[in-house]
């Protein structure tokens, strides 16, 4: 029971990142490696701000903004300086390592034990007195659901539709009189903002930020996106944002089970990559993506 609670809690927190990576990878069709840097960026920003007494919710907004700035840099490198998408991400990810150390004041781990976080103060505090150890899970769920709903709403707005169009057909965006490069930058800001927010919530839950926590985040988030959209993508009423969060929970569950049956924690990252490869290959074998061609009478034209 305790294990289930941890899997769900971490699934929801990392799920925020999965939604962010869904935007860059699936909507924008951009393999963004900045994520490995923007996740700890969110953690460090939160830790630094909470340590100086900033409200934890303000810290969440600040983390989102910091992540968005990182995404913006990746986008500018790619769009304005014409550096390839993968390399732009790697460059920013590497640079962020130093930035994160700057934020934490050259500490690899920055703790903020017993300071107010979203889990321990305000609404989180109320949950804690009412629900005890389940409060962390409920708080993570609330944040994740709010993010999911906001992203779903955004993707249906005029700029949301334009963002989706620029991922699948940049030429179409040009013919609408808009610069697809700007849309790319916007999407990267959004995706990395959410990733940093995910890092921020994770840091507040652990009451510490770890500069090295970013390693493997891209792999984990992409795995969640691929697993989620492959398994649940065909279900009409399920939005992809929900699918990727469930994908993340499943992925966390696999890792937790492996640890439980006695896998050495040092092999965690190896396992993360292996599960990713399995997910990637398994979804390729099963290419039955949405097919509703039959709806249209092709003989008409």
């Amino acid at each position: 029971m305790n294990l289930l609670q941890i899997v769900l809690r971490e699934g929801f927190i990392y799920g925020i990142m999965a939604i962010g990576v869904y935007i860059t990878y699936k909507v924008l069709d951009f393999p963004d490696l900045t994520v490995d840097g923007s996740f700890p960026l969110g953690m460090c920003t939160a830790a630094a701000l909470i340590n100086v007494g900033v409200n934890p919710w303000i810290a969440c907004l600040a983390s989102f903004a910091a992540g968005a700035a990182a995404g913006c840099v990746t986008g500018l490198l790619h769009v304005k300086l014409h550096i390839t998408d993968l390399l732009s991400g790697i460059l920013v990810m590497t640079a962020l390592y130093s930035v994160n150390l700057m934020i934490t004041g050259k500490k690899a781990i920055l703790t903020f034990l017993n300071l107010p976080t979203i889990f321990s103060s305000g609404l989180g505090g109320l949950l804690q007195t009412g629900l005890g150890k389940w409060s962390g899970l409920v708080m993570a769920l609330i944040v994740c659901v709010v993010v999911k709903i906001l992203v779903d709403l955004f993707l249906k707005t005029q700029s949301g539709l334009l963002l989706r169009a620029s991922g699948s057909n940049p030429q179409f965006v040009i013919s609408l009189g808009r610069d697809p490069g700007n849309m790319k930058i916007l999407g990267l800001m959004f995706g990395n903002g959410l990733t940093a927010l995910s890092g921020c919530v994770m840091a507040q839950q652990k009451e510490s930020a770890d500069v090295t926590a970013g390693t493997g985040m891209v792999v984990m988030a992409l795995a969640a996106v691929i697993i989620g959209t492959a398994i649940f993508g065909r279900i009409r009423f399920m939005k992809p944002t929900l699918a990727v969060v469930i994908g993340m929970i499943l992925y966390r569950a696999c890792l937790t089970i492996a640890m439980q049956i006695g896998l050495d924690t040092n092999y965690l990252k190896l396992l993360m990559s292996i599960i990713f490869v399995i997910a990637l290959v398994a979804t390729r074998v099963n290419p039955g993506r949405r097919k509703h061609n039959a709806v249209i009478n092709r003989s008409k034209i």
Partner: protein
Amino acid sequence: MPSSTAAKSETPIVSMEHIYKIFNPGSVNEVVLFQDFNLQIARGSFVSVVGSNGSGKTTMLNLLCGSLSPDEGKIFVQGKDITKLREYERSRFLGRVFQDPASGTCPQLTILENMALADQKQGHYRLRPGVNRKRAAFYQEQLSLLHLGLEDKLEVSVGSLSGGQRQALALLIATMTPIDLLILDEHTAALDPRSSETVMELTQRIVQEKQITTLMVTHNLKFAIGFGDRLLMMHRGHVVLDAADAQKDALDVKDLTDRFNEISIEDGN
């Protein structure tokens, strides 16, 4: 906006003046395509352009749309110099339909969402709901112009339409907001013969109904003869045949193939 019609009828809607374009200058692959190329298109005309591969048809369109810029020369639309404008900036007054039916629409979005995006072209893309339900009736009315039954399939994703249907929709989307010039870039070339006939008929109907100045590049000599009021044949960056109205009506497919053959012989092919 038609202000003083008398003066406007004299200024061409599109004017390419003294265009020079050299590809890969200074290398062994140097191709001198345009040397002092000039073209004027009058308001309301429908110009068909034919020519063999490498004659400069597509380059001319790319220069007009801004995906290429000329080495020298200026391009005017409605008397305004647009030479320095970027491709997406020109899209606000130029509509383009490509050879590839996948280019003109977004496959992931529904017909309704595609049309809603196109509807917003002259305005701003904000955080308002992307689809304005009140406009659905207008979209249906526009779609019914196509006679393809798409007006009942607003919620169907465009990716599941056939090439011909997508091209018809692309044509509608390109002409939905007021534009100065419609550019058709071999827009029937990737379709099967029957679909290309249908799309060509649609083109004719839409262009007439909305009175849009049109520039059509095609490899189909029958279409070039059968549609439009002016025909250009291009060769090596020059207009070698420019026939309008009665002169064009007198042309038939054989005249064009003969002319093509003459050019080929001059080239020694």
